[in-house]
Each structure stands twice: as C-alpha cells, then as structure tokens.
C-alpha cells in the first residue's frame, strides 16, 4: 500500500508540473531522487504556513477548517484514512465486515494502539467518538451523514458493531472524518487525546500551533520531529514568511499573484494539485426566470468561464462543467455540455421567451473572489441583454438571506467538499433544484451494493444536472502548494483541507 501511495504522489507531482505552464525550470520527476534524505532530517522542525487558524481544537464544537488541517491524521486518526488522492484505507480499523443485509458493519481494531495520554484504544472509545459527532449539541458538518446509524455495540474491547437503518455505501468513507478520541479526555477545546503520530505541543492563539512527534505511536513514526503551523490572516504576510524562510511550506495559496516570486526561483517548488473547491453561480431554481432550464443554460453559455478563471487565477485552476471534481470517482469531463457560445445563449434566451433579456440581482459575498467574478459575469451577461445588479453581502447575510430564507435570484458561493454532488438530490437545499429522478438516483446510489453501481448512478446525476444547468459551475479552484525545495513528502491535494504532515522530510 505504502509503495502505491508513493507512486501516486509522484504521478501527482508530474501532473502538477505539466499543468504549471510557467514552472518550466523544475524537473518534476527528478525531485524525489535529487533530494537525498540527510541523516539528520528525522530531527527536523517543519514550519507550515496557513491562513486557517483553528477556532478551537474540537471539530464537533466549531473548530472549523483549521483544526481539520492541523489535526486530521496528525493528532487524531479515524477508523479509516482518506488518502491525499481520495482513496479510503484502513487505519485504526484493522479490518471490517459487512453483513449480508448490508446494514451491519463489524470493525476490528488495530492492536497496540495507545492514546497520547497512555490509555489503550478500546471499542468504547470508538463508540464514544461516533456518538460525539451525532450528539445533539454537535456542530459537525458531517452530522447528517450519520443519521443512518441505528445502534452501536461493543461486544469486546477490539470489536465495534454498527447497525444502520438503511444501506449506506458511503458509510466507511464517512467514517474517515470521525476522530477517534479517548472517552476519558477532558478540555477538548484546548487540548487533545488522540492516537496520531503527533501530540499537541503549544497553541499560541492568533499565531501558531506546534505538534511534537509522539514517541509511543503505534505505526510508522513521523519523519520529522516537530511541525509548527504558523497562522496568517493575509496571503501577502504568508508569502513574505515563506520568502524570508520563516515557514517551509504554504498549505494552500489563495492568490496567484505572488507565485511569480516562487516559480522562477530554484529555492522553491510550486505544485498544482487537485482541489475539491468549486466556485458556483447558483441560481434559485424555484423562481422565474431561473426555474426554466433553458434560461440557466443560456446564462451558462453566455459566460466565458475560461477567461474568468484566467483573470482570477492566471494559468491555474480547472474547468469542470459540473459539480464533480476529478478526484471524485464519478467524475467525467462535462465542460462541453454548456459550451461558451454567445449566439447559442441568445437563441436559448429567445426560445425561453426572453428575446430581449431580463434583469436579476446577484447576491455576492463580500470576500474574494466573489466580487471580482460578479463584475466579470455582469459584463459578460450584458452582451446577451441580461442586466445584472450586484448586491454585495457579508457571509453572515448570505447565510440568513440565501441559505436559510432562500430569498434570492442568483448567488455566488464556493463549495469546498468532495462528493457533494449529492446535494442536488435534496430539493430543500438552498438552490432548490427539484428533479424527482435525480433525488431517486442519489438515494439509490447511497443504498447501492457496490461502488460501481454507486458510481454509475452518480454519473447519471452529474450528467442530468449539467444538462439542466442546475447551477453554473464556474471553475474548480487550483490547489497550489509552495514549498522550500529542501522539503519532500508533503501532501499536494489537501483534500477536504487535510494536511498530513508526518511524511514531510527536510534535507
């Protein structure tokens, strides 16, 4: 398994560089062999620069993206691990069996696993950890995925049995998001008790968080002695830190502007991985004029997404034409379904009964890149006679006005998670796409017996929503990691904001 992962990493690097048109000086394939692992590298301290400071250290109490980045796989481990390229591997679960009804899951735990406090891992801890996510006060974004759990039993210390109320093919995948926490642990908002390769050093709020290698780790020890996450609120300060060697790697570049300083410089390596963050122009599919698929298709075809992507991200980023990023198993290239074609857009508008266009208000979150993209969309749609009124709102207003009250015509939003195409199967979701066929497919997919069947159904969902232009999927963000060229073994895709630090080596 380990070997396979490595080769996938290599492939990702090569692909990244192929996509990086301007990064010509690096020879992507050579990087691994040309950086000889020095003997002292296992004692290195790795500085990681990030824009996402944890709110607190508990991911069921609003810890946010930051704590996922710092702790997932590093401090806490799940029964399963979602690898950087989107595969699900056994982690704390040594093995699992599914009953013939597809409803009973029996997990066997790894032997010899110890929490950082020294307590051994038992099935009671697993039960506690799952229930922590599904509990009433839980703020976990994944809570709803576990509504299918009927009961959790612990026949012995090494075995956990979970019974579901209906079949759920994503259950094992979803479990990779559940941290296994010692059921005796206290103060989880400021401390931790996980089983991961690192234990928490110090958390200096507003500044940094350090993780120290845990000597009693049950698996392969971390390749470095300590990692320190340095937090910044602004991308420029973050880049300056990298330029002045205050940090060794930046988890996710949020602006392409500074990249010129790194991509032409041998001391740094710029890699372009796969992100799952999609920028959406989301229509309110309940209300005229966007209740007509033809109108939505016309708007989609009237906007030159390629040019938009280029003006925001330069040569980075990907066009996807649907909600599914390439890392999801049911991805296919659907950019041709609604091509950029102004004449087609005009014709579709006329067919839909709006030959001279119409006007609508676009609720635009006030932070980048939304206002910029909205300005671009406004000028594009003006060419087909559609007048856009840009209404800039705060994230808070967006939540109330758009997400809760559905009081909008169209809006812009970034959707960060993988496998989230299933939201189109929920007619109550904020965009109000209501297609009974799609809803049924999503439900069947979740209850299917094999991954193949699931993939098949979700592909159909994807094709249908693209054909209906349920939303306009403007582009997929790039996932750009910039690191000192002394570094190797860092994750490139940062899937769902994870950043596994235990493999990082510093020459």
């Amino acid at each position, binding site marked *: 398994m380990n070997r396979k992962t490595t080769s996938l990493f290599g492939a990702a690097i090569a692909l990244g560089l192929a996509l990086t048109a301007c990064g010509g000086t690096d020879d992507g394939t050579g990087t691994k062999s040309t950086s000889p692992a020095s003997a002292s590298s296992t004692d290195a301290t790795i500085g990681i620069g990030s824009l996402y400071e944890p709110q607190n250290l508990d991911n069921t109490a609003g810890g946010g993206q930051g704590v996922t980045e710092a702790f997932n796989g590093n401090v806490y481990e799940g029964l399963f691990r979602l690898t950087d390229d989107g595969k699900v591997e056994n982690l704390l679960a040594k093995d699992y069996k599914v009953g013939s009804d597809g409803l009973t899951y029996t997990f066997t735990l790894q032997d010899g696993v110890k929490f950082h406090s020294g307590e051994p891992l038992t099935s009671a801890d697993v039960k506690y950890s799952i229930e922590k996510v599904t509990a009433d006060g839980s703020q976990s974004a994944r809570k709803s995925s576990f509504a299918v759990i009927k009961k959790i039993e612990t026949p012995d210390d090494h075995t956990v049995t979970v019974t579901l109320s209906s079949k759920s093919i994503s259950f094992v995948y979803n479990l990779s998001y559940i941290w296994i926490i010692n059921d005796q642990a206290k103060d989880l908002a400021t401390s931790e008790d996980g089983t991961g390769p690192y234990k928490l050093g110090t958390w200096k709020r507003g500044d940094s968080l350090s993780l120290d290698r845990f000597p009693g780790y049950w698996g392969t020890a971390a390749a470095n002695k300590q990692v320190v996450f340095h937090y910044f609120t602004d991308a420029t300060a973050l880049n300056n830190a990298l330029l002045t060697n205050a940090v060794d790697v930046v988890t996710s570049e949020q602006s392409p*502007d500074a990249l010129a300083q790194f991509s032409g410089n041998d001391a740094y390596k710029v890699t372009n991985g796969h992100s799952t963050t999609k920028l959406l122009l989301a229509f309110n599919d309940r209300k005229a004029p966007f209740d007509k698929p033809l109108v939505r298709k016309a708007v989609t075809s009237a906007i030159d997404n390629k040019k938009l992507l280029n003006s925001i991200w330069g040569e980075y980023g990907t066009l996807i034409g649907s909600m599914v990023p390439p890392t999801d198993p049911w991805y296919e290239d659907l950019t041709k379904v609604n091509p950029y074609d102004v004449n087609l857009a005009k014709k579709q508008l006329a067919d839909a009964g709006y030959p001279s266009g119409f006007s609508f208000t676009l609720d635009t979150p006030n932070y980048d890149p939304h206002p910029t993209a909205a300005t671009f969309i406004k000028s594009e749609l003006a060419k087909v006679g559609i007048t856009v009124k840009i209404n800039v709102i*705060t994230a808070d207003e967006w939540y109330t006005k758009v997400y809760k009250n559905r009081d909008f015509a169209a809006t812009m939003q970034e959707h960060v998670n993988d496998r989230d195409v299933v939201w189109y199967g929920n007619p109550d979701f904020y965009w109000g796409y209501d297609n009974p066929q799609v809803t049924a497919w999503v439900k069947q997919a979740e209850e299917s017996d094999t991954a193949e069947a699931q993939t098949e159904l979700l592909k159909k969902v994807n094709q249908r929503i693209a054909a209906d232009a349920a939303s306009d999927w403007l582009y997929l963000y790039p996932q750009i990691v910039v690191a000192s060229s002394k570094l190797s073994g860092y994750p490139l895709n940062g899937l769902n904001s994870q950043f596994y630090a235990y493999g990082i080596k510093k020459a």
Partner: protein
Amino acid sequence: MTHANPAGPSDTADPGGAPHSGGAAPAGRRRRSATLVTGCVLAGTIVAVAVISLFWVPFSPEDTSGGRLAPPGPPHLLGTDKLGRDLLTQLMIGARVALTAGLGSVALGGLLGVVAGLLAGFATRWLDDTISALLDILIAFPTLLLAMLVVAAREASLGSAILAIGLAMSAIVARLTRVLVKRVLAQDFITASRTSGTSWPRVVAEHVLPNIWPTLLVNLALQLGLAVLAEASLSYLGLGAPPPNASWGRMLQEAQATVLTAPLGAIAPGVLLVVLVVGVNLVADGLRDVADPTRRRTR
C-alpha cells in the same frame, strides 16, 4: 493609527495656538502665502483629477482586457493591475473615492460636531461636565475602532466608512466648538448684548458663529486630511468600499502581493495619498494664517 487619531496632529485641544509656523511675522508672511499656494496646487491637482474622472477615464474601470500586470507603456500608461484593469483609471477613480470620503465625513462630522459643541458651549455646570466627559470618552476611541464597529453593524461600504469617520470626527469638532463658544461667551460684549435683551439664537447668529468660524474652518481642513487617511486605512483592512470599487487604500493592499514584480502599483496610490493629505494640511496652515494673522497667544 496616528493618522486615524481623532485627536491627532490637529490642535483641537488648543484652538488658539499650537502646531503652526509661529515664527517672526515679517519673514513668515511670504512663506505663509507660499504655504497656501503650494497646498492649493497639490490638493487642487487631485481635485482636478477626480473631476476629470467623472467625465473621462482612459479605460472602463471594469475593462479587464489589459492582461495581468502589464508593464507601463501604451496603451496602459501606468500598466495594469492583477485583474488586467488599467492602473491610471483606477488611480483617477481612487481620487474621487478619497475626496468623497474626506468631504463626506467632514460634512457629517462638522454638522454634528458644531451642533453638539454649541449645545455644550451654552450648557453650564453638571450638564457641561457630562457632555465634556462623554466627548472625552468618545475621543479616546480612535476613528478606526469606531469604524470597525460601524462596519460590523452595517456593511463594508463607502457610506459606512463616511458615517464612522464623520461620527468620530464630530466629537473632536464638538469639543473644539465648545471651547470656542465658551471663550466668546466670556467676553464683555455678550453680557452687554444679553443685558440689552438680545435673544440667544440672535447671539449665536450675530456673535458666536462669526467669531468661531475661522478657527473651525481651519480645523475642518485638517480633519479632511485625517479623514482621507482614515478611509485609506479602512480600505486597506478591507472595511472600506468593497471591491471592485477603486480606493487607494485597497489598491495598496492588493498591490502588496506583487510589490517586487510590479512595484508601481504599490507606490503610486501611496504617493497620491501623501500629495493630497500634504496639500490639504498646507491649505489648513495657510488658512489659519489668513484667518488669524496676529496669532494672539492664549497662554
């Protein structure tokens, strides 16, 4: 910051005399008019640019056809920003935004401040004490904090920025007005005119306002410079007019990322800010000398 300081370098606390070229009169005379002229030229240039931008700019502010970070040269005389927008166009519109913010806050702060100051000036004993104490507390809060609160309450927009800066300014203007009014009221001719039966409103109109406006005007001019800087700071922090509006503060913030590759974008807006603020301050200094040529000392 210091420039956002409501009680900043303007001599609000000491209306009679303070930062000022108080040298010997004969030699100073010529230099003073030079001060006024220099100030007018500097500030006037920016005003002219802002006025021109109302009718003509080289490119549409939304035109992104220039390509990312094009270097200076025709057709983009100063190059383009990271979205391919013409830098010169952005700078011209920025002049308009800066002046709108400055003048808007001065109008708001001046109006509120003078009214409150007149009230406090005529008040006596505990009422006067209370108002003064309130003003002191308000002044202790820098414009920037007040603005952040206003922005949190409303939204990040030019209107919010003007409201916040104007509110903060009004406390300073009010305190100044109060001191000035008190000083006028202490003079004998007021007592005389009150004894002869003149009503308070007439006293205000005939005696108080004419006596205090020169000092007020000078102070408002200084406040204009501070307001421009405050708006720039707010925009820099992302609390001013939201993108895609061009504000110099915001432009500087955005250009920070490319300071080594496209330095002009990180320099030009700052230089224009300095030109405008120095110009306005010089005008204020010059005005002071015109308004109060004898520079009578109060201490």
